[in-house]
């Protein structure tokens, strides 16, 4: 059976090209039209070179800058900005959604039989590798653009394309009033292409193409509202932070190559079969840590998490797709993919586990006090990613991937729900200005509540199963400390999620009367994806029901061939029940506290009041610090950026400008002087040219003759 694997990423790429080109050309035409219109409106502007810039007229209706006047919210949304004509939106939408949708159909068409056959066979199917193109060859080493289908990539493939398609569909509704509609879909398709390349790659270099590609798209989409300073800055922040991780990633790839002599995933099998026995453990340890540094950057782990909350400056579907469901899990995927190498360096795994745990609890604690609905979800995402790394760190790669899978559904659902809320609120993101939205947007309410319950870890929803397996693995692997952190985090998660629900949907509306009148439910293109995702959050946990609850854990069985063998936990059945009970109890406690604290009237002050809310009152002196995100951004500024700036300035002034530039400029001057003299050999007289030719022959004749 041959799989058309390369078609799966190729379709979104085609979509990107088509949408991008059409949007580009249409954009030029529009810009030209606007300029012409402006010229007509300002005949006195005349020659245009001097005098006033185009904005100088100050007429809102033909101001090319467009999103000029919007008090807050992620994007300018003035009624003055002309949305694209209907047919144009239809075109971009059909191409964008169609490309991803087709890709999804293809992917499922490949994955479903693969899963079926794999589960039917004893040890799973071997990986299918399809080479699309020979990229380069250097001596014995060849590097192909090859795609791989095995359990791990099949898993990623299925939910990336599926969730991706739903979010594309959602975007058609969400982005309908945006001028950059075509550009948005082009970027989104480019992202899908990169992400699919990442998960289907058969070698680290190809994976790295996808890795950088998703980073690029993330940057482009965070800065989608590029005329907003904070969006542009957030994009830059994401990019720079990711560079730090990529530095480790690249070195890690080199390290893998040095260790195994190849960078395609055959090294996983080599590692599994003990090819590393002769190598110094230290080098394996170093390579693992370098790869993990890359994963930290992409998956927003401490201390490289700072970009992810800021990434919420992008449109909400982007937050859902890239910064919650897919791209940020790439780090977990990388660690799981290289799990066979990681298990050779147990110390590195311990680092992974503790970094994950620290991220989980730290981000959750910040999430407790956020008032921006998307920021809460962002910190929640960071925290959940920490969970996933925690799982990998204790050797439970399967559990980690399971959480990746379930998280993709409920977090995407939450983000899209929040998008629906934001849209209903006319781009108001502050929860203090919400409240009582339940009857006004019932579909959003119901779907979000399902996802909230799921993430809080209430059985039998998806989040319960995946989170419980992580906690069980942490305990079983003999890390009670990690278990405790995870447990506390679970409680915090339940708290901030229900705080969000309570502030948004219950109580009374705290915004202005005018805003209240405009609240409306979102169109079907947005609610349908919500319901599908909610269904996933509701039911997908049953794929991985542990044996102690009478399931057969199909999920783990399917994934096992791709991962390093994890040791069975020596935990008694009674202990397992106890652990489950504890996690449910903690979650319930979190819910209860949230419900109590935010149920009272006046618990939530209105915007823009600075009056402390219930959280401040409940936590004492810690409250303000937590609300300010533990002052991490300020700390980085003072401890890292400022010293570097000072050193940089010193080097620039002292060393660069004087020494380096001096040397360079002097030699450049000399070379140029030589050139100025040498050019006079070309005298312009053809006789001289014949002479140089003759002299050349003479010289060479003498040379040959003397030899």
């Amino acid at each position: 059976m041959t799989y058309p694997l390369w078609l799966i990423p190729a379709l979104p790429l085609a979509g990107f090209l088509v949408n991008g080109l059409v949007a580009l050309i249409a954009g030029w035409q529009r810009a030209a039209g606007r300029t012409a219109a402006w010229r007509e409106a300002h005949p006195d502007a005349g020659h245009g070179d001097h005098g006033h810039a185009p904005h100088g007229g100050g007429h809102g209706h033909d101001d090319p800058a467009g999103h000029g006047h919007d008090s807050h919210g992620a994007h300018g949304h003035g009624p003055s900005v002309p949305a694209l004509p209907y047919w144009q939106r239809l075109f971009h939408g059909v191409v964008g959604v169609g490309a991803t949708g087709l890709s999804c159909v293809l992917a499922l068409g490949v994955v479903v039989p693969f899963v079926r056959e794999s589960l039917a066979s004893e040890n799973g199917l071997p990986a299918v590798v399809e080479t699309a193109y020979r990229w380069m060859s250097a001596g014995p080493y060849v590097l192909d653009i090859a795609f791989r289908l095995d359990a791990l990539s099949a898993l990623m493939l299925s939910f990336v394309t599926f969730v991706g398609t739903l979010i594309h569909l959602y975007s058609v509704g969400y982005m309908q009033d945006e001028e950059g509609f075509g550009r948005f879909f082009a970027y989104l398709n480019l992202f899908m292409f990169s992400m699919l390349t990442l998960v289907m790659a058969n070698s680290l270099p190809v994976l790295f193409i996808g890795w950088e590609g998703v980073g690029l798209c993330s940057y482009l989409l965070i800065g989608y509202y590029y005329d907003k300073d904070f969006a542009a800055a957030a994009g830059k922040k994401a990019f720079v932070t990711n560079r730090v991780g990529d530095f480790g990633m690249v070195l890690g790839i080199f390290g893998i190559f040095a260790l195994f002599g190849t960078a395609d995933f055959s090294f996983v099998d080599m590692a599994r079969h003990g090819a590393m026995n002769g190598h110094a453990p230290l080098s394996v340890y170093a390579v693992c840590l370098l790869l993990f540094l890359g994963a930290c950057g992409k998956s927003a782990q401490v201390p490289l998490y700072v970009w992810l909350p800021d990434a919420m400056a992008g449109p909400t579907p982007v937050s859902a797709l890239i910064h919650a469901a897919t791209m940020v899990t790439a780090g977990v995927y990388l660690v799981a993919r290289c799990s066979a190498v990681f298990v050779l360096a147990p110390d590195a795994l311990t680092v992974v586990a503790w970094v994950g745990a620290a991220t989980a609890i730290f981000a959750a604690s910040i999430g407790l006090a956020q008032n921006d609905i998307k920021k809460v979800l962002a910190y929640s995402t960071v925290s959940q990613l920490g969970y996933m790394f925690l799982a990998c760190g204790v050797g439970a790669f399967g559990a980690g991937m399971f959480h990746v899978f379930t998280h993709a559904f409920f977090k995407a659902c939450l983000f899209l729900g929040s998008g629906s809320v934001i849209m209903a609120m006319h781009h108001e993101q502050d929860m203090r200005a919400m409240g009582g939205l339940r009857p006004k947007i019932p579909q959003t309410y119901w779907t979000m509540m399902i996802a909230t319950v799921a993430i809080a870890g209430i059985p039998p929803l998806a989040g319960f199963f995946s989170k419980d397996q992580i906690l069980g693995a942490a305990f079983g692997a003999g890390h009670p400390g990690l278990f405790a952190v995870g447990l506390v985090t679970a409680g915090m998660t339940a708290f901030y999620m229900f705080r969000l629900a309570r502030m948004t949907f219950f109580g009374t509306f705290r915004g202005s009367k005018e805003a209240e009148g405009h609240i409306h439910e979102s169109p079907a293109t947005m609610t349908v994806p919500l319901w599908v995702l909610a269904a996933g959050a509701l039911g997908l946990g049953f794929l991985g029901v542990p044996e102690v609850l009478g399931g057969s854990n199909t999920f783990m069985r399917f994934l096992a061939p791709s991962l390093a063998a994890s040791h069975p936990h020596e935990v008694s059945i009674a202990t397992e029940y106890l652990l489950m009970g504890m996690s449910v109890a903690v979650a319930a406690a979190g819910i209860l506290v949230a419900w109590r604290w935010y149920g009272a009237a006046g618990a939530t002050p209105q915007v823009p009041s600075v009056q402390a809310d219930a959280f401040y009152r409940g936590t004492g002196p810690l409250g303000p610090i937590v609300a300010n995100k533990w002052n991490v951004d300020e700390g980085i500024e003072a401890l890292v950026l400022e010293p570097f700036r000072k050193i940089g300035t010193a080097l620039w002034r002292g060393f660069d400008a004087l020494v380096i530039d001096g040397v360079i400029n002097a030699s450049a001057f000399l070379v140029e002087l030589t050139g100025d003299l040498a050019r006079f050999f070309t005298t312009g007289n053809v006789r001289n040219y014949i002479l140089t030719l003759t002299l050349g022959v003479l010289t060479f004749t003498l040379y040959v003759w003397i030899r």
Partner: protein
Amino acid sequence: MTLNLTSADLAAVGPEIVLSVFGLLLVLLDAFARPLRPAFPYVALAGLFGANWAGHYLGGTFFSKAIEASDLTRFVDLAAISAATLAVLGGAALLERDRKNQGEFYALLLWSTAGLTLMVKGSDLLVVFIGLEMMSFGLYVLAAWYRETAESVESAMKYFLVGAVASAFLLFGVATVYGRVGSTNLIAIREAALGHSLLLDPLLSAGLLAIVAALSFKIALVPFHSWAPDVYQGMTTPAVTFLSTAPKAAAMVVMVRILGALAPNGLGDPWQPLLGILAVASILFGNIVALSQRDVKRMLAYSGIAQMGYAAIALATFNSDAFEGLLVFLAGYILTNAAAFLSSAVLSAGEKEAHSLSDLAGMGRRRPFAATILSLSMVSLAGFPPTVGFIGKFLVFRSAIAAGLMPLALVGILGSLISVGFYFRVIYYLWMKEPGHEVEIPEEDPLAGAAYVLVAAGILLLGVMPRPLLEIARAAAASVSFGPLR
């Protein structure tokens, strides 16, 4: 001595036949259907496509061993046809604007191309000579195309006179080789060379030297380069697009073939250093003088001298690795240099072509496409990844280092460093400098647009995915057998 002409013989010169016939057709069309002049570029393109289509001939020797067809000649056919195509695409609008779009321009271009491919196919030095002259005669006339302008005829005169001297030297060399070996046929010469160590003969060496000098003149290697800047500057840009690319590449290939025939066991002592000196002198002189040029076309001329210096490194290395690298380099050079000239042609306003760098100032915003192509070609000429210019240079330097010619590679790298100065100055002027004076902006032109797409795709795609190019270059390189690798 019997006439035994088969269809394979004719097929082997298929491209030349098609080109010649279309050239004649263009001359006739110009005489009898003058109103059709705007359509002539398309006729010429049809001829070039036809020639490309006719390029699927068999390998082997034809016409009583007068020519030898192989993957190598197919490679050069394709390269020359591409260069001519780009010249037509990029130049049509300019010629039409200046009312210089007579059919003869395209006819001469096609005939010149035919001569070029014939020269490379020639396995008899007589055929090589005829091909070379055919190519040159066309270019002499094209150089004088704007015959009312003093610069144009001056460049033609210079090119012609120095070229004629070079031809005489070439003939002297051919005569000497003929006399000492007894044949003008490269195949026979190679057989003789395998049996006798020919290059020890002083007279034969002198003859070979004359041949090398004459071909170096066509390639414009220092010290046989001096015509190039003047000719480039005075010649109309569409013609320079062709002149500065394909003939140089073809002369390089012919040089390799002749040296390969005379020195089948590898180049000996005086020859390898000699070619090395040519390379070093060209790289240093070309790059350094290019740095002090303010005229775009003169700058490109000196840059071309330096580029051919890099290519001469491969010549000095003289093994099949180096030849492969040389072919890749030449293909990249043709694409890139043609891109540079045709985009600067589009950025110029007719007879008042863009001459000085300051004419280019601010063009990035006014003509973004042409400026982008020019910038891209500068990056590629400077040898930066991910462009095809990088690949070729890399292969050439690598093979030189592998053959133990580290100093040559180092000079090449030094030259590349210097070259960044003037290549990037163009980019600086295009995008970051405000226009100092009013420059006439020419109209948009669909043919040039097609050329942009072609060259941009070529430069970038082959830079990112060089494998197809590497493969045909490898096949082509296999057509010349070199001495044992050192």
